[in-house]
């Protein structure tokens, strides 16, 4: 449907450029400007009233202090664990929920609803459920003779317990994204595979998985960015503890801000920004390029 160009210089345009303006002003003033300012202030010792330029000292500190390095590692681990679990479980649930299983509507609603619930509310609820002796999870495990671990009190486990709750809350979103991807696959492919005598496994591996690649790309990108930036769930459940065992960059940023180390906190922001840049940009490019070859 090619249409004639509608430029008319003498009268006001139907597509005025000033339509960008209100959005651009708000976005630039409250998002872009602080982002650029952070590049400078991360190089300073800063009290909000005056700043002293100290070069890369804040960043050096980030890679020197053991608890800050741990925060960095935790952030990456958290993002990897949550996004891979969301891919696997989301795909599994979507396959289940697009098959002709009974009570599909109920199952979809139940899996999806946690996505809409307050993260802090979920965090507090699971903190109670995960209590080592009085929590329902360990009491339930005791019933079948398993001694449950100290989910949030064991330093080796705390981060992964929070990650599990993140998956509990977020897998519904991954599932609906996969469902949208699965129902868009043309039936003909399965028909052709059936005529060729493909097994269920071959069906999944050679038809479903490659053709739901856009959905996989979306789920991975969304949950990876979300995982790297995660703050509210960690803060509601462990506040980075025990010790610094479940600290992430985002919780370090908040702690340094509270302690009044504004320069260091801002350096944390820049570190997170760079981290997202060097992981997510190549990841997205990889996922989208592969898709072109299929």
């Amino acid at each position, binding site marked *: 449907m090619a*249409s004639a160009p509608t430029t008319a210089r003498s009268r006001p345009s139907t597509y005025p450029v000033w*339509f960008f303006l209100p959005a651009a002003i708000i976005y630039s003033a409250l998002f872009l400007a602080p982002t650029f300012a952070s590049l400078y202030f991360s190089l300073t010792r*800063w009290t909000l009233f005056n700043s002293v330029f100290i070069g890369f000292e804040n960043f050096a500190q980030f890679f020197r202090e053991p608890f800050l390095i741990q925060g960095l590692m935790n952030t990456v681990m958290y993002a990897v664990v949550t996004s891979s679990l969301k891919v696997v479980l989301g795909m599994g649930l979507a396959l289940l929920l697009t098959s002709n299983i009974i009570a599909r509507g109920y199952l979809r609603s*139940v899996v999806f609803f946690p*996505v809409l619930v307050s993260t802090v509310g979920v965090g507090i609820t699971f903190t109670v459920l995960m209590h080592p002796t009085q929590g329902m999870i360990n009491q339930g495990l005791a019933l079948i003779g398993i001694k449950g671990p100290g989910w949030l009190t064991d330093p080796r486990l705390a981060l992964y317990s929070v990650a599990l709750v993140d998956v509990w809350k977020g897998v519904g*979103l991954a599932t609906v994204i996969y469902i949208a991807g699965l129902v868009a696959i043309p039936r003909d492919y399965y028909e052709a595979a059936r005529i060729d005598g493909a097994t269920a496994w071959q069906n999944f591996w050679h038809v479903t998985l490659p053709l739901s690649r*856009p959905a996989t790309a979306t789920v991975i990108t969304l949950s990876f960015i979300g995982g790297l930036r995660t703050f509210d769930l960690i803060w509601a459940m462990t506040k980075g503890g025990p010790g610094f065992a479940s600290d992430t960059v985002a919780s370090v940023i908040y702690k340094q801000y509270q302690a009044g180390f504004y320069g260091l906190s801002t350096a944390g*922001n820049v570190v997170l920004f760079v981290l997202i840049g060097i992981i997510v940009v190549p990841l997205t490019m990889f996922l989208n390029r592969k898709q072109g070859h299929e």
Partner: protein
Amino acid sequence: MKRRASIIGGVAAIAGSFVVFVIPFIFIILMAFKDKPQSALRDFSWPQGFHLWDNLVQVVTTRNWMMITAFINSALITVISVTLLVVLAAMVGFVLARRKTRMNGLIEFLILAGLMIPPAVVPTIWLMQGLKLFGTLHGMILIEVAYNLPFSIILYRAFVATIPRDLDEAAIIDGARPLDVFFRIILPMLWPVTVTNIVVQSVGIFNDFTNPLYYLPGNQNATVQLTLYNFQSQYNTSYNLLFTNILLITVPPLIVFLFFNRQIVAGMTAGAVKG
């Protein structure tokens, strides 16, 4: 045979999903019905007597009716910022989809940047202080608009692209003034995606905890998510009140879910299946 297998599978799925996804919510409800000594046990048990009303009254009246203030604040922030988001994002999405200029590349880059880059917290506070926006409701509203614009613009741009350009031209030929094309013809046609925008963004902004924590300090400014956080320490021994609070702030998303389930899913899966 196949039919029976699918029924067995279905029953297993229902049982599994019930344990994993439903029981935590039943736990919240049960806790909200209990009195203080029983809730302190934090076990999965039937409430002895129904104390929900007492708990509700106590949660709402604590700290000078802070809960009411918080609900008003959250409602104001959500309604005003979502309204702004809808109008501003629709304007950008419309021109972005219709006009091919060299600026488009830059704008698309900025949209992606907005989706990925975590906001620089302290510089934002510093700037907001300079603009006298820090710790004010209107400042918080503008922050929510700035942070959520990229997602809304993407939704609108994709939808505008499906409306044929011929429509604009027909309107012009029929004598519509240039601005009428957007405000009287296109904007009403965007209604489905506007509904999606409204529900997805209002749930997100209502549930936002991190941004009010940073940019909206002070008790008179509390939002509902922060009441939960503030009461967490105060109610250290009163789990019944803490869970009544959780129940209370889960009701608005539940209502949205019951009425707009389809639009939410449509909005959140947008972009997942590009051809």
